[in-house]
């Protein structure tokens, strides 16, 4: 059982405060969703958990299995088992996808090349990705859907304990959304990680069923509830929640 805790977290970039006294706790086997209008700090939260040095933590703490991780570097946090899928995955010139994933897996454990290739091909098939994409430079010339599938492929290969999905559903057509959603759920059934989903829409939640939904506004969680909260947001928008908060 693993646990990620965010305690009274306040974060700034430059002079601007993005997160204010934010609290959140996610355990293995739990799926949480964070929703909210644009620019309220959803992506910032995912990057701060991962240790992006562009942001400054002014107050509070992030704990993984009861130990503070805010002094750890990004790669150390990743090696603890925290995995972030990027909203806009980076394109890396000259580095093939297979070399990239091999280097990533090698940083966790000694790679058995035969097993690695076998697993990579198997997961590529499941994700309905063209095998040729493994030899292409990371994310270069990939469509939006292919980039997101590539993020899920990375998740399969690294087997994280905490998965943070930052708008994994953006740029996906209906078929790709189904593949991505079903594969995340398959990984969840298999490994029971803690999952934090950041999204604007309900459509991903047709495939991934969350236990808790949170609304983030002005850097703080202003309301938490069950998956029924998503239906309310879809119907009413954020305004009623924001107005009652103010």
């Amino acid at each position: 059982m693993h646990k990620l805790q965010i305690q009274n977290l306040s974060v700034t970039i430059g002079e601007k405060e993005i997160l204010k006294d934010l609290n959140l706790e996610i355990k293995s086997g739990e799926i949480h969703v964070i929703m909210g209008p644009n620019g309220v700090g959803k992506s910032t939260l995912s990057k701060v958990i991962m240790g992006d040095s562009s942001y400054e933590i002014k107050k509070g703490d992030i704990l993984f299995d009861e130990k503070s991780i805010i002094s750890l570097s990004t790669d150390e946090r990743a090696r603890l088992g925290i995995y972030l899928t990027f909203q806009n995955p980076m394109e890396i010139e000259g580095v093939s996808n297979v070399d990239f994933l091999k280097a990533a897996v090698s940083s966790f454990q000694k790679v058995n090349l035969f097993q690695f290739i076998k697993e990579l091909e198997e997961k590529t098939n499941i994700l309905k990705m063209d095998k040729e994409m493994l030899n292409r430079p990371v994310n270069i010339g990939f469509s939006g859907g292919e980039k997101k599938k590539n993020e899920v492929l990375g998740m399969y290969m690294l087997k994280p304990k905490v998965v943070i999905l930052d708008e994994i559903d953006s740029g996906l057509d209906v078929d790709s959304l189904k593949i991505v959603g079903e594969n995340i759920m398959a990984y969840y059934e298999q490994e029971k990680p803690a999952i934090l989903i950041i999204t604007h829409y309900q459509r991903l939640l047709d495939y991934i069923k969350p236990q808790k939904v949170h609304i983030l506004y002005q850097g703080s969680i202003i309301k938490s509830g069950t998956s029924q909260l998503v239906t309310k947001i879809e119907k009413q928008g954020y305004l009623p929640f924001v107005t009652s908060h103010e």
Partner: protein
Amino acid sequence: MNKIVLKNNQLMLSEIDFTISLCSKEKTEFKPFQLEIKVVKDTSLLIEYQNEIPSKYDIQIIVEPNCSFELYEKKKEQETKIQYRYDISEQASVTVHKFQEAKKIKELDIVYLQGYESQIDYDLKAISFDKQKYDMVIYHCQSNSKSNISNRLLALQAGEIHINVTSIVYPQMKDTNVIQNNRILNLNNKKHTICPNLLIEQNDIDASHSAHIGSFDPATLFYMKSRGMSEKEATKLLLKGFLQMDFIPSEELEKIIDQYWR
């Protein structure tokens, strides 16, 4: 593949077949060692420089009509001055792959795209530890000619890089295609320059140029580290990607990077 070795201002070895003819002139007090390479059929050639003393070469490459020529060049740790002149005929193409890990280099490449549909694809990768100066001039002397120039150089230690690339398209040279991509990966905080010039006197052409001097992109490093790679592993992988060439085996490139990047 045909092969020649140039060492200390001399031609030390030539293993060539009927597709290439060579003509050389010894170094004199006033002129450097001169070599004329004439390509008469589709072929490839590897030039290796093994200088132990500062050396100077003047090399002319003439490619006959309808020939496809691949030139590979390797240089290592030597002080060298080289002038290349390429004369490319009608419907002939030249592809240049150069890999250099060297100290002082001064190189001038002059390309004459003399024939209709003549073409050059030029790909230079270099690691620089000292002053390096590259001047290139590409003359589009005929319609439908194409040039695609890619220079990617890595500055380490005392490396200082200056690149000057000038592409010239004369009037009436229609449907020409001019591409320049120049990049210096600055890992020593020295001053480097890139001057990409396009001198075009014709409207009906495709042209683009890019020049970039900088270090690793922090967002890319963050992405790689979020996959568990340490900064050292991530930068090594990026360097390998930056410098890789098909004719340099992956293991050899890794050794070179390990040697210089700690």
